[in-house]
């Protein structure tokens, strides 16, 4: 695939991620509750000279918290636009996208706090957090530069390791809606859903390992792209109904859109590694000799 198309793929992934979250900020409620409402945040606000009523609002009027949430939404929208328009030569545009990374880190940290500090909640957002950085690396260094590839690999591992840790449910309990979506979409019972998610969780970790094995990495990322797409689509597919207003699109579609990095990044790696046999872009793989595995076995 030409480099321009690979770059376009990354632009689309970043755009969809920011656009999805912008939708959440403007239309729904961004998940900053646990981050904003605590003694530490208020103490900081006090040090900055913000009074209590200004901080939380009078009830009839918005306070700092509500206004702040609204402003953030505009920043997400700006980052979505930058995702499509940023150029290598424009440092402020690239800096803006990196700022978008920071926004996504804050948001992911807030979700992590809201999930009772379960590590996979933060880790599985790695793909989303790093998506703009990946685009910046591709713009600044080139889509086939080693830095770009490393960022993509780290983002993929984070996404699938976090997701896999939840799907396995060994330490952090599997979110119940994972089971619900599986049961509704596949029409299976709970026990079958458990087995399904267990297998899916194991495969999530297999992907994380498989991308370091030269013969396995393209099938792995292809599977990751398909699985990432399916899990993103699972929200609207399981939840939308003709009985609902707008078929429930406003409730569920953004859940699939903001998860675009979950399938775009593996897809990027799939196409990136297409020419691997001709000209390896980076020495990241483990050769069959190193693993004592044969590609013909």
């Amino acid at each position, binding site marked *: 695939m030409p480099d321009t198309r690979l770059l376009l793929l990354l632009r689309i992934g970043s755009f969809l991620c920011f656009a999805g979250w912008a939708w959440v900020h403007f239309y729904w409620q961004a998940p900053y509750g646990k981050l904003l409402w605590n003694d530490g945040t208020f103490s900081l606000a006090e040090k900055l000279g913000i009074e209590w009523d200004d901080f939380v609002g009078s009830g009839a009027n918005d306070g700092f918290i509500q206004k702040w949430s609204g402003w953030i939404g505009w920043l997400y929208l700006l980052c979505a636009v930058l995702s499509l328009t940023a150029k290598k030569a424009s440092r402020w545009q690239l800096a803006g996208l990196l700022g978008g990374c920071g926004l996504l880190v804050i948001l992911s940290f807030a979700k992590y706090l809201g999930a009772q500090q*379960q590590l996979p909640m933060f880790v599985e957002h790695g793909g989303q957090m790093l998506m703009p950085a990946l685009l910046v690396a591709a713009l600044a260094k080139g889509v086939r530069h080693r830095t770009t590839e490393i960022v993509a690999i780290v983002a993929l*591992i984070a996404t699938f*390791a976090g997701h896999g840790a939840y799907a396995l449910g*060994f330490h952090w309990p599997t979110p119940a*809606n994972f089971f619900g979506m599986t049961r509704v979409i596949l029409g299976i019972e*709970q026990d079958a859903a458990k087995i399904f998610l267990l297998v899916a969780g194991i495969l999530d970790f297999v992907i994380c390992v498989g991308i370091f094995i030269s013969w396995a990495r393209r099938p792995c990322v292809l599977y990751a792209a398909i699985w990432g797409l399916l899990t993103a689509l699972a929200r609207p597919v399981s939840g939308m109904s003709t009985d609902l*207003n707008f078929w429930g699109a406003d*409730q569920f579609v953004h859940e699939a859109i903001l998860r675009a990095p979950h399938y775009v990044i593996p897809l990027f790696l799939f196409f990136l590694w297409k020419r691997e046999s001709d000209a390896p872009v980076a020495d990241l793989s483990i050769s069959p000799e190193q693993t004592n595995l044969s590609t013909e076995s």
Partner: protein
Amino acid sequence: MKLQKILSFICAAAIAAGSVDLSAQQKAKGKGKGKGKGPGLLAIPEVEDKDRICFALYTVHDKTLKLTAQLYPIPEGQPREVRLEVKKDGEWSEVAKTTVIERGWTAPFRVENWDDSKATAYRVAHGTEAFYEGTIRKNPTDKEEIIVAGYTGNSIQPRHGGDISRQDLIDNVKRIDADVLFFSGDQVYDHHRHYAAWLKFGRDFGEIIKDRPTVCLPDDHDAGQPNLWGESGKVSTLQGASDGGYIQPGDYVQEVERAQTSHLPDPVDPEKIGQGIGVYFTNLNWGGIDFAVLEDRKFKTGPAGRVPKQGPRPDHIRNPEYDPASVDIDGAVLLGERQLKFLDSWTQDWSKSEMKVALSATIFCGGAHIHGAADGRLHADMDSNGWPQSGRNRALAALRKGYAFHYAGDQHLATIFHHGIDEHRDAIWSFCVPSIANLYLRWWEPLEPGANREDGSPEYTGDHLDGFANKVTNYAAANPEKKPAGNLLNTRSAGWGVVRLNKDTREITMECWPRNVDVTDDSAEQYPGWPRTISQFDNYNPPSWGKLGELTFDVEDPVVQLIDAETKEILYTVRANGKTFTPGAPKGKAFIVKVGKDAPDTTVSEKAEVGSEPQSVELK
């Protein structure tokens, strides 16, 4: 190569997280410990065989004892049979045995023809070593005042004061010698480990539960989700569950309900809903008080995608300019048809009862303005039973036909409301109790002062419209501190409630106590606005009504029923207090008046109207 090693390390670390946790889980299983991080509050202790039984809950209704013993896990090779024995003439005698249900380790017993005219010592037995003793109380039919202690919101998180001992609650129940315990919901906050949390609940409260009838209503958090619109057992997939249904699988919900409700009287209509989930709505007649156990979440419609978006969450309305009628959509259910049918017959049945109390998870209005934090002002919250409005009005209309008082929780904010349907104060009263430890703060803080307030009462009291334009009259609200105030229980308005039902005077007294006070100490103070005493007959006494002629009877406390002469619809049925009763009724309409000793089987007037002549009625 260096880079490869770094990436390999990252990958290995991620995988190790999963595998290490697998080991931890396997160890936990082996040692009977819970999973997940945290301070070990929900660790399941390894117990000796003699301590295998954690606690037991029971009710007695209509001469049937139902008791559920809650056990710790029984090791392989040990018997699964559990026995119930009672003491007769100083000797233990087996009255029932059952096989423990391993999913949740519950042992439910049912004993018919139970003699409730005397207290009976009981013990649950497992194997040869484990015995758990308690007392099945005498039915207190001859007691003048029935005391019901009420609780909600049992957070165990230290940051809410949840790690503070419950001993004050135990001591106070013993001091007032409560006749019934009512846990209205959120006994368990852990969304994945109900069993472990339920055992902890039992260790905390078993000492008082074992000796008195207890009603538990599993609410949203018990069922493993933040809010609950049960929607007849649908599967919920939306974050927050506002699409309706259950997030957790059906067998998890069944386990929760088995643990918390299998000791309740048999459900009046036991047909299961989706995912094999049962129902438990029923009534418990104890000490002359007829309690309706409502499942106000089970059939309720989820709002997401069904009502026009009015706020940042599908279930929250932030826009004060919205049209309340726009969310009162056709087909939205609050109580199911089966529940309304039950209430219809329950309000007409006054055999062996003098007063009626409805028990449910939450109250029938939007009972708070600010949610979660002081910035969280909502116009309305569809998790409350103020929505859907038509369903709310149907529920209140059904309950007022029996002059039922409403006792509930869930809100994390203690309140007293007098509800209205067509006019303010034309329906029942409700008392929402405060949380044992308050996970989530709420405030009742209307922007406008209430109308028709009592002299000297706060501006937030009086007649209001809630966010759904439901008519409500507030009499008290135990609002927490506005700013984050550390871990102290009472700055977060934690506490518990007491309702005293006086059968002689037919008065209902509501008490709202903070934590860690001795309620028998004269210096102990309740939250502002409590105590408050109302009459049973205030539960259906619209301001616009007049009075029919006084009825005088030749028997004490007969049952009186008014029926609309034109529509034949029952206006209400109630047991009179004493030998006289002056029925209230709407002006300008005619009513059929029926009277009887225990059921309204004698028609004494075909066209009674407001202002009609007094009448003597012979029933002997």
